[in-house]
């Protein structure tokens, strides 16, 4: 159901954390702005000092799609991809898979979700995000 992620030198730690089933983001040591994907500099204040910080793992559905076409070999249709807006900061938005059927009526913009992890075969060890609904507004 997935493809093993490729990584770059900035993102290795993020992927390693996901493989250990922990969701982390960079956080600026100066202005405390969260950021993702991994970048060397804070886009808000320009500082280079930062740390990885565990996130709540909670957010809301910013948008979602139902894929009815096999876009990638190994990922059979239909399947959902979510964009989740993290509780930490409104511009912290990231994609992931959905734990539920593609026509789940609870899946609406604004539904509250929580991060789950799905191990992904391959080397190095990896996991992907699989969001589950904890509170729907439908």
């Amino acid at each position: 159901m997935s493809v093993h992620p490729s990584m770059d030198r900035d993102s290795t730690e993020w992927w390693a954390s996901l493989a250990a089933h922990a969701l982390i983001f960079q956080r600026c040591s100066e202005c405390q702005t969260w950021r993702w994907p991994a970048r060397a500099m804070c886009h808000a204040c320009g500082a280079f000092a930062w740390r990885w910080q565990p996130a709540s793992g909670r957010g809301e559905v910013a948008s979602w799609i139902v894929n009815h076409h096999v876009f990638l070999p190994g990922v059979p249709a239909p399947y959902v991809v979510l964009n989740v807006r993290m509780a930490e900061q409104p511009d912290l938005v990231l994609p992931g898979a959905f734990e539920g059927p593609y026509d789940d009526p609870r899946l609406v913009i604004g539904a509250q979700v929580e991060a789950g992890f799905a191990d992904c075969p391959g080397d190095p060890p990896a996991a992907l995000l699989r969001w589950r609904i904890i509170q729907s507004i439908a």
Partner: protein
Amino acid sequence: MMLRDRTAVAGVGWTEYAKNSGVSTLTLALRAIGSALDDAGIRHSDVDGVACHRVGDSVQAVLVAQALGIKDLRYHLDMFGGGGTSHQVVAHAAMAVATGMAETVVCWRAVNARSEFRMGGTGRAAPDALEFQYQLPYGYATPPQQYAMLARAWMHARDAKPEDLGRVAIAQREHARLSPRAMMRTPLDMDAYLASRWIAEPLRLYDCCLETDAAVAVVVTSAERARDLAQPPVLIAGAATGGGHTLFSNGRADATVSAAAELAPRLYAAAGIGPREVDVAQLYDAFTFLVPLQLEDYGLVERGETGGFYADGHASLGGLLPVNTHGGHLSEGYVHGLNHVAEAVTQLRGAAGARQVAGAEVALTTGQPGYVGGTCSALILRRDGDPVHSSGQATAPMGNEGNGA
């Protein structure tokens, strides 16, 4: 120094639009450039600058320059990027001419987007973008998926219905039926639109642009020189680029307003022309919803009013603001934005035949409004002659009251 009206598009050229061109992108580029030079009445030996954009899917600009026989390449732009850069390429050419770096710059986009490199297809290599690692593992990799994600959020915020997107596809198909160049010329009605298969919900097949083998070229030179050439000059009144954020925004939490909203006031100020003065608009339409989104973000229609604008026929020929008169990427063909520039020029020359917008003096033509590629660009073109407008201010958008017409 302002760019306003200092340069002009002196020639436009197209290859055939096909599902399989059977030739290289180098040959496509040369054919379109040759056609544009013939149109302008310029010899190939007079070209001293080249400019194109590509995403690893087309011939290098320098090889086209060599093939044109250029020995002293005074301006060279080979930009990485998709539809968001299409209008930047023309803007850069205009800057090169306006500053005296070059006299005559050819701009083109050449791609075998159906037979060689399918943007929406399967099995292609991932583009050279750091952010794809966060999408690919989920089977989330192609433009229809990325724009479906944005379309859902926009439709939710505007309470837009599938029929609102369907009217965009149908209006553009009607325009394409009047163009011998268009690939899709059979009628499309709402039932057929709604019955078309899902690609990535909320986008159906007819929400998606065509994949086309084609090239389009335009010739940019000084306005002064253009007045001595074969065609009536079309002035580059204003140009602007924008954007910066991508799908992974780091700064824009709301995906329902595009980078065009920030670009637009600068564009209108650069041109000294406001949105109410635009007679015809060619808006980047890789997917239907981008058209109403840009009508909002370029200040042409009030937010939330685009559905009624289409339902009332205002975006069709004979309406208040005909949009994508060539059929756009949805029905003419997908040449990554440059075919919008070519259609704007054709309209301003009064040479669009059955699809001509009567009295068109000012055209807005736009590239992709940011998001996936991260950048955005647009041009305001106008017919040569005394300036028809002098406000220099971006005026209020058209509301329900229309544009005073």
